[in-house]
């Protein structure tokens, strides 16, 4: 189902949760709303669901304005962060609820068949008689998903669906959700503050910040070409280097990198972002930023180096285990750090 959000704003007391947000989601797409807490992503999701009313703007389902349609009649599947399973009902009754409260209630046999089919889909066929309190977190979340799918929703909304689960289960459910989505082809929107989750699962990522949309794009676009300093910092570890922007180049410690969009800059202060794995480290003087090694931490196959640059600048670099071994570096040793690629912004955040 095509979903359009048109200049939606929402204020809670003094807090502006959403300011003039517009977004289009294509039919069959799985979109992630990614942002820190308080960025408005959950509010946006609840407005699509009809659980909150926007102060202005509108939501369209298939081009039809649903602003006056109550949540009850929107036929939207909603999966809550803390599952919100009906605790006094069995798994079966939970999944059947949406069918049983219908005006034209299907026959008992139809409901039974439908629930069995959904429980099979979420791989919980044998759990129908259990109560939610007897299930693990991952199982509860799958019940919540089956329950939401029972009403054959036009769009599936998920609020931090894996936020309360431990890392292993989260990873599993993530892949499983992606597969499920591919099989069913349902339009889906999920909220997350975990960039890895958004990049791995979604077709398109919408980064929200302070009640607005910062960037919309495919996971690769978002990661490789962050539009703003905020996104750069939000998507994983990043080093901030003070640079001078001058005639289309960013200059750091005798090195110059091309900086598109700053052709007219005349020696202006700027900030360059470099991801830890884009920082080349060498022991021999080959140009770059002179640094000294503070310490190195081995994390599985990679080694994370904490380096001290000029003016007490702290840098982080990530090397493969073999590259680190070849370096034969010890704490306190002087090294050279050379960015492979940088992305520069003016100091006040401009581009």
């Amino acid at each position, binding site marked *: 189902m095509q979903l359009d959000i048109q200049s939606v704003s929402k204020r809670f007391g003094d807090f502006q949760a959403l300011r003039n947000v517009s977004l289009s989601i294509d039919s069959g797409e799985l979109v992630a709303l990614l942002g820190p807490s308080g960025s408005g992503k959950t509010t946006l999701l609840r407005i699509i669901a009809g659980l909150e009313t926007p102060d202005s703007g509108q939501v369209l389902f298939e081009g039809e304005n649903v602003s006056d349609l109550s949540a*009850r*009649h929107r036929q939207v599947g909603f999966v*809550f962060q803390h599952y919100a399973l*009906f*605790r006094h009902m069995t798994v079966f009754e939970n999944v059947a609820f*949406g069918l049983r409260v219908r005006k034209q209630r299907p026959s008992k046999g139809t409901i039974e068949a439908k629930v069995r089919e959904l429980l099979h889909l979420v791989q919980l066929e044998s759990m129908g008689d259990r109560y939610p309190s007897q299930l693990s977190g991952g199982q509860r979340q799958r019940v919540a998903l089956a329950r939401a799918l029972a009403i054959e929703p036009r769009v599936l909304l998920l609020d931090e669906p894996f936020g309360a689960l431990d890392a292993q289960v989260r990873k599993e459910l993530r892949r499983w959700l992606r597969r499920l989505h591919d099989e069913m082809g349902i339009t889906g929107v999920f909220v997350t503050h975990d960039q890895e989750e958004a990049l791995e699962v979604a077709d398109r990522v919408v980064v929200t910040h302070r009640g607005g949309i910062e960037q919309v794009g495919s996971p690769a676009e978002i990661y490789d070409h962050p539009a703003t300093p905020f996104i750069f910092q939000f998507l994983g570890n990043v080093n901030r280097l003070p640079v001078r922007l001058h005639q289309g180049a960013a200059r750091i410690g005798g090195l110059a990198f091309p900086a598109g969009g700053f052709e007219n800059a005349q020696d202006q202060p700027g900030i360059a972002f470099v991801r830890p794995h884009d920082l080349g480290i060498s022991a021999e003087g080959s140009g770059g930023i002179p640094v000294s090694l503070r310490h190195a931490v081995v994390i599985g196959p990679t080694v994370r180096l904490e380096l001290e640059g000029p003016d007490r600048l702290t840098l982080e670099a990530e090397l493969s285990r073999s590259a680190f071994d070849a370096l034969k570096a010890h704490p306190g040793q002087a090294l050279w750090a050379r960015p492979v690629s940088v992305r520069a912004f003016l100091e006040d955040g401009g581009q």
Partner: protein
Amino acid sequence: MTRNSSRNEPLLVRGLLICVALSYLGLFLGAPLVTVFAEAWAKGPETYFKALGQADSLAAIRLTLITAAIAVPINLVFGLCASWAIAKFEFKGKSLLMTLIDLPFSVSPVISGLVFVLLFGLQGWFGPFLAEHGIKLLFAVPGIVLATVFVTFPFVARELIPLMQEQGREEEEAALMLGASGWQCFWHITLPNAKWGLMYGVLLCNARAMGEFGAVSVVSGHIRGLTNTMPLHVEILYNEYNFVAAFAVATLLAALALLTLVAKSLMEWRFAAELNSTRRL
């Protein structure tokens, strides 16, 4: 570890602590209870049942039952509505409503009774109006019911509000998203989740409704066989030095207290798992 160290506590200390606790309980709870039953049965079962069988005693029992039968359902409905509104919705005047619900707890029951006298008595605000229309509230059954409702209305709400607040609104929202109407949400989600708290509240409310003395005493007028509830009847009999009869009626109230305790413990024991699961998930 803790278990072991508590076991290693010197025998004397443990014995002493247990003795203190038991004698405290015995002195302030056990002894009065035994006294009530002993005094009532002092002159044999025949006198006991005769005392209970007196017309005035029967009338007092009937009035108490009627009062509770009216006051408890009213407070059940009120308590449910109030706690639903307070726990699930945001509105102006919410804290005022919560303060008002607590009012009967913070005001002495005698004062509550007096308020009704000042409102509905002959010299009261609505007194002349009521007299004109031939409605008798004070020194009659309606007044007793009114005072009882007032004194007991916090019980159900007080039990439900924290429970409902802890449960939050998510399940109702989930039901709504699945297409349930407001009524279906309430009937299928809110009420079943609150049922144990509700029963508990009703139990306490009932115990208090039957045992209320102060407020009822002020508005009842103590008319024998007409406006005496059990607690009031006990006082009258006692003042008349009719100890056996006084204690006989008192045994019924004591039995009610014991029954309430048993019912409460049974509920906690029988439905422990379910109670836990409705509180936390």
